[in-house]
């Protein structure tokens, strides 16, 4: 009976081992740097949506990187968290004020989206590929 043995080149084994050990770190960097990019976009867009953007701008946060076991995902969130005191001296939840401006209200607030338009798919993908190139060993 014919028999065939193949051995993988040691360089290729080392390359794959390095790749495997770096994957999680790479994914974390990808989501983090993309989230930071989105944060910059939100900060840039917010000035056109609010007369006084400072209270909301101060409450934009990028979360810690975290894993979701259900889908083995690596995530970093950009969001608006916390409260601020408005001009009338009332304590206002910042996410509620931001949602009012993003989606408008039935009373008197017009819609001025600033958050959703900060997620630019091509820009985010470009940043992720940039990070990926830093981690992946070059092709021979």
């Amino acid at each position, binding site marked *: 009976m014919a028999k065939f043995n193949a051995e993988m080149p040691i360089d290729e084994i080392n390359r794959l081992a390095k790749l495997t050990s770096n994957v999680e770190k790479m994914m974390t960097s990808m989501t983090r740097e993309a989230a930071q990019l989105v944060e910059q976009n939100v900060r840039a867009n917010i000035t056109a949506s609010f007369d006084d953007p400072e209270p909301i701008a101060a409450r934009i946060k990028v979360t810690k990187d975290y894993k979701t076991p259900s889908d083995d995902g690596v995530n970093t969130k950009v969001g608006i968290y916390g409260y601020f005191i408005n001009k009338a001296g009332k304590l206002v939840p910042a996410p509620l004020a931001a949602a009012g401006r993003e*989606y408008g209200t039935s009373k008197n607030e017009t*819609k001025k989206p600033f958050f*959703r338009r900060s997620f630019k798919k091509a820009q985010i993908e470009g940043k992720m590929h940039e990070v990926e190139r830093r981690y992946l060993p070059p092709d021979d």
Partner: protein
Amino acid sequence: MISTEIEKIFKGFTVDGSEIPFALRRYNGSEKTFITYEETVSRPAFSADDACILEEHEVDFDIFTPGNYKNILEAVKSLLTENGFTWIEDGPDLYEEETGLFHKTTTFVAVD
């Protein structure tokens, strides 16, 4: 014009036997349940010979109601999908204390 097409699609829009008023940006009538719509972004979808051939319109549909918006949301989504719109996302569940209305935004894209 995308707004002309949208107005035509929603003419006589009825859910659970009640006709729901539909308006661009702001509804000034007296009904408690109503829908407004607004184009939020328009961008080139396809270009040729340095000119835009197709435009992509992102439109928010805002449902306001004192009750449950689930059936209205489903009816809006199926009507728009049947008419060639593509669903993008739904906004968060909002409740407006000033008017006592629940507010749900659904976003669709159309190309023309």
